[in-house]
């Protein structure tokens, strides 16, 4: 049943022997011990498990690990390079954009994909880009502000 999968996550190659059908989420969390992506619904309806697949934000809770291996995978952990936070992470801290924080990994990942494509998103574009991500604490206002702030930071260079 188990198969060897070669997968590139956060810039590093990993070889793991797992059930190839096992969704990427469990491979990341349990085999690679990355806590960024989280289980929320298991059917692509909440965004807690968002990761970047070749730079695009996608849920990781359904796609099998084997199928995901064709992409370069990035989790929240991968946005921090040499202990330097991504401007989006910084902006979330500055805006204090979290309550319980469970949704925040997914939010930052979705924002990362958005800001890579669109340097100056409008409020409406930010809302659209985050539409797949649920937050039950109602932190939305601050999350939108954080994404705007991150855009401004990145544009300043």
């Amino acid at each position, binding site marked *: 049943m188990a198969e060897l999968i070669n997968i590139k996550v956060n810039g590093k190659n990993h070889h793991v022997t797992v059930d190839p059908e096992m969704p990427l989420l469990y491979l990341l969390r349990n085999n690679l011990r990355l806590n960024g992506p989280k289980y929320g619904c298991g059917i692509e309806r909440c965004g807690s498990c968002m990761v970047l697949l070749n730079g695009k934000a996608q849920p990781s809770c359904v796609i099998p690990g084997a199928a995901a291996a064709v992409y370069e995978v990035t989790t929240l952990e991968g946005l921090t390079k040499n202990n330097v936070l991504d401007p989006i*992470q910084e902006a979330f801290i500055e805006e204090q954009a979290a309550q319980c*924080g*469970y949704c*925040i990994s997914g939010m930052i990942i979705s924002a990362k994909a958005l800001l890579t494509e669109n340097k100056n998103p409008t409020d409406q574009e930010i809302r659209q880009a985050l539409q797949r991500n649920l937050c039950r604490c109602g*932190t939305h206002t601050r999350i939108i502000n954080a994404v705007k702030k991150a855009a401004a930071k990145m544009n300043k260079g």
Partner: protein
Amino acid sequence: MKQFNDIKSGRREFLRGSGYLLMGFTLMPGLGFTTEPDECYLPEQTLIADREAIDSWIRFDADGILTVLTGKMELGQGIRTALMQMAAEELDIDIKKVRIIIADTGQTQDERYTAGSGSIEGSGNAIRNAAAEARKYLMALAAKELGSNVAELSVKNGIVKSNKNQKTIAYKDLVKGKRFEAEVSEKSELKKPADYKLVGKSIKRTDINDIAAAKSRFIQDLRLPDMVHARVMRPPVYKASLVSLPTEQVQKSPGVLKVVVNGNFAAVIASQEYESMKALEKMKQTAKWESKPIMPLQAQLYADMVQNGNAGEMVEGDKKTSKKPSESAVMLEAEYKRPYQMHGSIGTSCAIGLWKDGQLTIWSHTQGVYPLRSTISDLVNLPLEKIRVIGVPGAGCYGHNGADDVGGDAALLALQMPGKPVRVQWMREDEHKWEPYGSAMVLKIKAELNPEGKVTSWQTDIWSDTHSSRPGGKAGHLIAGQHLEKPFTFEGGGFSGGSHRNSLPLYDFETKNVALHNYKGPLRTSALRSLGAYGNIFALESFMDELALKAGKDPVQFRLDHLTDDRAKEVITTLVKKTGWDLKKEPGIGKGFAFAQYKNNASYFAVKAEVKLDRAAQTYRLVKLTGVIDSGQAINPDGIINQTSGGMIQAASWTMLEQVNYSSDGIESNSWETYPIFRFEDVPDTEVFVIDRPELEPLGAGEAAQGPVSAAIANAIFDATGSRLREIPLTPDKIDWSKVS
């Protein structure tokens, strides 16, 4: 003096003896986990039996790090930061030198539940008093060391200075890692608000740094050495019983270590998480259940509540039926309804249980570690001292959700797997179907308006199921407890005050009365953020607008005319100033207002809602919510804004979209598709203003917004459309669009 060894030496010692291999345990303040993603440690038990001891609340180690201990839980409300601020303030030390330990029966005092917005009032005051006492104690030591009078001493950043001889000494050199061994007298003078340097400031939450940097550890993220994974199979419907479950198939499923069946409680334990999920699927396919239909059906629910609720009892107000209405008065009457609604945590309930060396340890995101411990003691028949419950933050819970239930699951399953930590996490479907909901409610209000436009009498009748079925020591309150072969029975009863919370108007009416009709409904219910206040304020504040209309008064002025409480008036007038309230009609736009003092004794909150109609699509959008809150002394204004704005958005989601749907076969709201909540495109802009009253007691702020927001939206819809919606959710199909020009 006993050496106080919690923070440094004791930990290592303990670890050596515990059989746990742990590496690199750089301590992250407050979390009690290592920075290595793989390890989490079992902190040494350092509980001090004496609740009055300073050391029960705060401790200094030899490096001058202050540890604050709270029995309350971090639920995303930022309680850790606020409590650290309060302690650092009293002692004049750098907040960076403070860490906090949250709810752990092995370390912290019993502070019951983290609920009802009571943490700042409860734990905050205990910690503040302990810190003040510690300061007094330290000053006496310092005076001796420095050859000065206490009156000549001042403190900055943990360094005591004599203003007589300019000599200094650090707290840590006074304490030297020893215990205070003194009691909190509560007579020590607290710092004067005018001297505050930290309290009242928007100190940033350090836990948000960890969250943004993927370093935070939620209960779902803990990994203990040798940990195994379990999934529980819940019945398809509440009262179903398991007829047969051929376990062979499941047993053979890869990775399965054990299949546990005990009455209607069935679970599978596997080496890997995904294996446990696959085995669960197999189990579900082979299990045969005998179901009992859920009654009454949803369509008959409200009628059934009024018919079958009990005769009612006067619970608030003058507790007498009002005098005969006067001839000149106008009577007005209306009925409001709210459905069952969910907590809907984004993370599903999770717990880890470990049964080792005769000790049961449960890691849990419960709101009450002590009550959960006694409940588990009842469930598994172990004495309290053999059980330890360690609180670890989960996703926001907003009241009593599945956290305690899954703790019970983990306890039962850990006993089946001695020596191995058993991690149980619920599947989303189970979270939706099995959490205890906020109860449906029916509210009838009757009031009398005199010719001067004043309300002279008011009567509310409430029909509701309980708003509190927290376990509190009774295993029958846990799902697992009810499902065992020898089931524990659920003893409901003890309908708490939750149902009539905020039903009594704060307004000055000649007579006011509230009657509560308890009703045992078809669905499982318990505490959801603000309990009955949400439904009660929805009705009360909607009805105030109906009365104002009848009286021909501006709804805001109408409220002010009936209020004498100055703080109440001030949140309202501040909101008016900030938003420029007027009733000028703008086509397609509606404005609504509402106000309440939470529990009639905590935070004051006023809110304005603005809605915009889309006539072509026959729908509306909530554009903006503006709130003003007075929660007395604001410990951390930004924290209050964050929570309040969050409460506003959540309450708007409840109000506009949410109701638990069910049929006789079970709960139909079993996913985010079938129980939609706000997504980004639904969310209004929010703005919150805080009225800080440094000279007054701090009041809990976390639940103040829930009720008023619902009525403000209903009032705004009425303003825009002329339709008075009295049943939540306020969906656009309930609006009479033919009246909308």
